C-alpha cells in the first residue's frame, strides 16, 4: 500500500503562500486556523530558503501517542486523521507535534481551545461518510475520495510542494537532485552556488522515465 507523504523542496519554494491560501479556501477553514504555513529562514539574506509546512502524517505520530482520548486514526495510506467528535481540545497534540500542525479555533468562554483542526491530506475525517456535507463542514473537502491529491501540492506553481505516494515523491526528488548536481557540475561550481538551470548541451539529465541516466563527461566542457 502506498504511503502518503508531503515533501517541500526548499530549492524551489518561492514563498508565494498560494498553498496556504488554496488550503484555506478549499476547506473553508475558520480565521485563526492555519493548516499550512510557509516559513522563510534567513529572510532577506543570502541563502534564503522557504519551506511549506503542514501535518507531515508521521508514521510514529506524536499527536496520536499523547491524545488523552485516542481520537487519531492512521489510515492504510499513512494519513493521520483525527475524529472531531472525540477531540476534547486539550492541546496535547499541539504540544507534542514537532511541526506545529495541530491548530485550534477559539471556542466558548475565555476563548478556550475548540476542536483541533489540522491538515487531513485532503482526506476528510475518519468517522463521517466520504464526501458528505457533514464531513465537508467538519474537515473540508475529501479530495482523496475523489481520487485527487492534496490541493496545495497540486496547484503549487513551482512544484516545490510534492504530495503523494512516498516512493513517487522520492523518485521525483531524486531526479531533481541529480539534475541539480549535474547543473552545478556543468557550471563548475559548488552546488549551493549553482543556479539550477542545466545547460542545454549537458548530458546526464535525468530525463528518462526508466530511471537515472548515468552522467557522462561532456568533452566540450
Amino acid at each position: 500500500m502506498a504511503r502518503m507523504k508531503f515533501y517541500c523542496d526548499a530549492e524551489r519554494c518561492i514563498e508565494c503562500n498560494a498553498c496556504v491560501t488554496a488550503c484555506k479556501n478549499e476547506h473553508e477553514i475558520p480565521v485563526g486556523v492555519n493548516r499550512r504555513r510557509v516559513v522563510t529562514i534567513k529572510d532577506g539574506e543570502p541563502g534564503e530558503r522557504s519551506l511549506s509546512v503542514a501535518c507531515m502524517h508521521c508514521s510514529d505520530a506524536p499527536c496520536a501517542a499523547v491524545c488523552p482520548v485516542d481520537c487519531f486514526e492512521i489510515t492504510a495510506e499513512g494519513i493521520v486523521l483525527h475524529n472531531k467528535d472525540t477531540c476534547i481540545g486539550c492541546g496535547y497534540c499541539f504540544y507534542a507535534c514537532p511541526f506545529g500542525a495541530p491548530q485550534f479555533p477559539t471556542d466558548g468562554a475565555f476563548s478556550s481551545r475548540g476542536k483541533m483542526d489540522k491538515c487531513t491530506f485532503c482526506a476528510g475525517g475518519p468517522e463521517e461518510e466520504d464526501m458528505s456535507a457533514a464531513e465537508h463542514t467538519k474537515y473540508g473537502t475529501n479530495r482523496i475520495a475523489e481520487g485527487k491529491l492534496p490541493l496545495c501540492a497540486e496547484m503549487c506553481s513551482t512544484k516545490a510542494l510534492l504530495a503523494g505516494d512516498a516512493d513517487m515523491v522520492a523518485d521525483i526528488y531524486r531526479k531533481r537532485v541529480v539534475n541539480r548536481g549535474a547543473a552545478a557540475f556543468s557550471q563548475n561550481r559548488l552546488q549551493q552556488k549553482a543556479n539550477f538551470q542545466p545547460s542545454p548541451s549537458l548530458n546526464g539529465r535525468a530525463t528518462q522515465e526508466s530511471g537515472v541516466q548515468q552522467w557522462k563527461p561532456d568533452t566540450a566542457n
Partner: protein
Amino acid sequence: MRILWLSLLLLFSFPAISNAAPSMIQQDPGAELWNAVRDRDGADTGQIRSQVKGTDSTSLINRAGDEWRHFRMGQLIPVAAKLLGFTLLTILFFRLLRGKIPIRAGRSSQKIKRFTTFQRYVHWITAILFITLAITGSVLMFGRFIVIPYLGAELGGSLTFIMKRIHDFSGPAFAIALVVLVFTFIKGNFPKWVDIKWILKGGGLFGGHAPAGRYNAGEKGWYWLAAGVGMIVVVSGLVLDFTQVLELTGVGKTRENMIFAHWVHSISAVAIMAASLGHIYMGTIAMEGAFEAMQTGYCDANWAKEHHDIWYQEMADKDLLLDTHQAHTHSQEPHAKPTKATN
C-alpha cells in the same frame, strides 16, 4: 586531466550519483530534510518569518514536544499510577494492620468547638473543588487507559470533554478557594518544637502517644503542602487555562512555555493528589471522632485529649469545653456563634 579531477570531485560531492544507485538516497527525502532542519536547531537560520501569524508559526521544529511526549507517556502516567496505587495500598495495609482507631476513653459528655462555620464552609468548598479537579484531571491523564477502552472513543471522548470543561472551570474557582483556605487556617499551623517530637514518634501511627497542639505535625505538613504545592498547581493550571497570560506578561506564548507549565502542573498535581489520599483517609474513616469536627465544627473532648492534648489543655484552661447538648444546639444554629458566649 581536468575531467579526471572533476570526476574525483564528483565522487565526493555526489556519492549517490557516482554510484548510480537510487537507493543511496534515503527513501523518504522528507526525513532527510527535516533531520537537517532539526540539526541546525535554529542556530544559523538568520531571520525567520512566516506570513501566517500564530503560536510558534515561525518555529520549524519543536524539539521540546518530543521530550514532553516521552515524559508524559513513559514517565508521568506510569509513575503517577504507581504512586497513587502505592499510596492506596499503603493506606489499605495500614487499615488492615491497625483497624479503625477508636476514642480509647470512649465518648465524653463534652465537646470542643474546633472549627468555625466559615472555616468549615471554606474547607468543604475547597475539598469539593479539589476532588472534582482530581477526578477530572485523572480522567485526562488515565482516561485513555481506563475510560476509552471500555466506553469507546466516541462516548469516552464526549465524557472526557465534559470532564475537561469542568476541570477548566473549577480551576479558577479552586484558585480563589485555596487562597481563602490558606488564610483561614493559617492560625495554629506554624511549626513548633513539639512537632518534631510528634514526627519522631511517628504521629502515633505505630502506637504510643504523640503530643500535638491544635494541629499535629501531620496536619501542619498537609496544610503547608496544600498551600505551597497547591499554589504551584494553581498558578501553572491558570497558565494552561489562560495561555494569553503568557503573552500579556511577556513570557511568550510558546509551546515550550506551555509544556513547561504542564510539567509543573502534572507533577505537582500528582504529588498533592497522593498526599490528599492520606488526608482524606485520616479525616474520614481512619479514626473515630475525626470527621465530625469538620462536619459539625465540634469535636469530642476525649478525642481532643487523645490526639491534640496540648490544645485540649488550652481549651480546658480557657473553660471552652461545652457539654454535648449545648454544642448540638449551637451546631443546629450556625449563626449563633457559640464561642461568643464563652469568650
